[in-house]
């Protein structure tokens, strides 16, 4: 199998959530190799780990993000894709440790104070990881202070705030203000069902995207990390 064919297999397995040979999902790929086996094959064939990440994993997750945006797939399929991606990542971990692969940057994420909804936040986390970002997940019901503490620990990070309730959007505003007061250069992304671009502009956040892929596109452009 040619190098580009192996990389395409990895991307395909991630796109369709094929974890490994033992995984029964998706039913039409039952018994076939998955992302894990193809990643191992790629490395054994001498493909650079960085190429496996960018041309295999990231390609696959990019397709997942786009399909999710277009309502062609739903949360369960994204979860399976993320698992397939993790299966590949296990093989790539030593290359992150050695420094051969570098993450695009750090992304601190959390659902704002008063809000316990985490499915959207988790999807953003998975898609960002699949696109080469290191994600620091603070969980749900996160106070402004907790975001600020995380920023002190990881000063160059991008911060992502999620809210599902219209009524907790006020807490989003407060958190953005406090982050910008501390360092106006910190990039703050906001998202969640009730959030709008107009609200984003009003509270001084840098980016609003209605879907994870929009955020990935923005970050790739802003940090020239595509």
């Amino acid at each position: 199998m040619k190098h580009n064919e192996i990389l395409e297999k990895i991307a395909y397995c991630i796109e369709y959530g094929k974890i490994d040979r033992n995984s029964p999902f998706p039913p039409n790929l039952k018994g076939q190799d998955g992302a894990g086996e193809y990643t191992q094959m790629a490395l054994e064939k001498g493909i650079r780990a960085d190429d496996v990440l960018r041309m295999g994993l990231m390609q696959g997750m990019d397709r997942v993000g786009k399909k999710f945006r277009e309502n062609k797939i739903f949360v369960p399929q994204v979860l399976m894709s993320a698992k397939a991606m993790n299966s590949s990542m296990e093989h790539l971990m030593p290359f992150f440790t050695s420094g051969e692969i570098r993450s695009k940057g750090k992304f601190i994420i959390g659902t704002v104070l008063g809000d316990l909804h985490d499915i959207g936040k988790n999807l953003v986390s998975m898609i960002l990881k699949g696109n080469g970002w290191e994600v620091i997940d603070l969980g749900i019901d996160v106070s402004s202070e907790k975001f600020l503490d995380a920023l002190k620990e990881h000063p160059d990070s991008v911060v992502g705030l999620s809210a599902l309730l219209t009524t907790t959007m006020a807490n989003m505003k407060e958190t953005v203000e406090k982050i910008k007061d501390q360092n106006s250069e910190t990039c703050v992304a906001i998202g969640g069902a009730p959030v709008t671009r107009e609200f984003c502009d009003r509270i001084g956040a840098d980016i609003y995207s209605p879907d994870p892929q929009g955020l990935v596109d923005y970050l790739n452009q802003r940090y020239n990390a595509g």
Partner: protein
Amino acid sequence: MLRRFSYDFNELSVTKSDLEECIGIGCDLNSFPGQPEEALKSAADICQIQGGYRIFETIGKDYKERQLIAGEHYLKTGRLIFGQLAESDGLLVFVCTAGEAISAYAGKLMDKGDTLRGYLYDVIGSVCVEKALDKMEKELDAQMRKRSLGLTRRFSPGYCGWDVAGQQKLFSLLPEGFCGISLTSSSLMKPIKSVSGVMGFGSKVVKQERPCSICGKRDCIYYERNSPIKH
């Protein structure tokens, strides 16, 4: 007057279609053969569905501040909900939970990396609370009809402009730890799979459609959606 209820998971008839509807219109779980069925089967032993409500036979209204007055307590539900409850003579304050175990189990699966199964149990928790409340509402509708009274829709803090901090006021109308549900300082309910809210009732009350057309928040996830499930 205070009442409590508990339902067996099986009497709520939660189906795979209910899960698909909750996940998103167009979602098809058939590509995960057996998984939703297995989760629904074992959720029956995990969910501990209970709830209760307090009935205020009469309430006052502060039209200037748009507040409902239940006993000695003021509920600032916001313009939209106040309008929906304007014809009500009385108020019913309710809570319902699927229990701690379903979220704990979902979390445990997710922590183990079994994210899809974890997610399915999480969705089941959300769906069964809403279906329990649908059943409660249906039973209350019948009771109210016998008294020639109408019942409004359910309204919850955090939605339709009612500040989530309104939970504190709402819970102050109920005994502490009622039905095993408590509030955090940031007004989140524990167990997580819980819903609280109010319904109005009265001789002039007619159940209205969801007030989306008045609200105008076109980007709201519940905009003109029939199912009010939150997860």
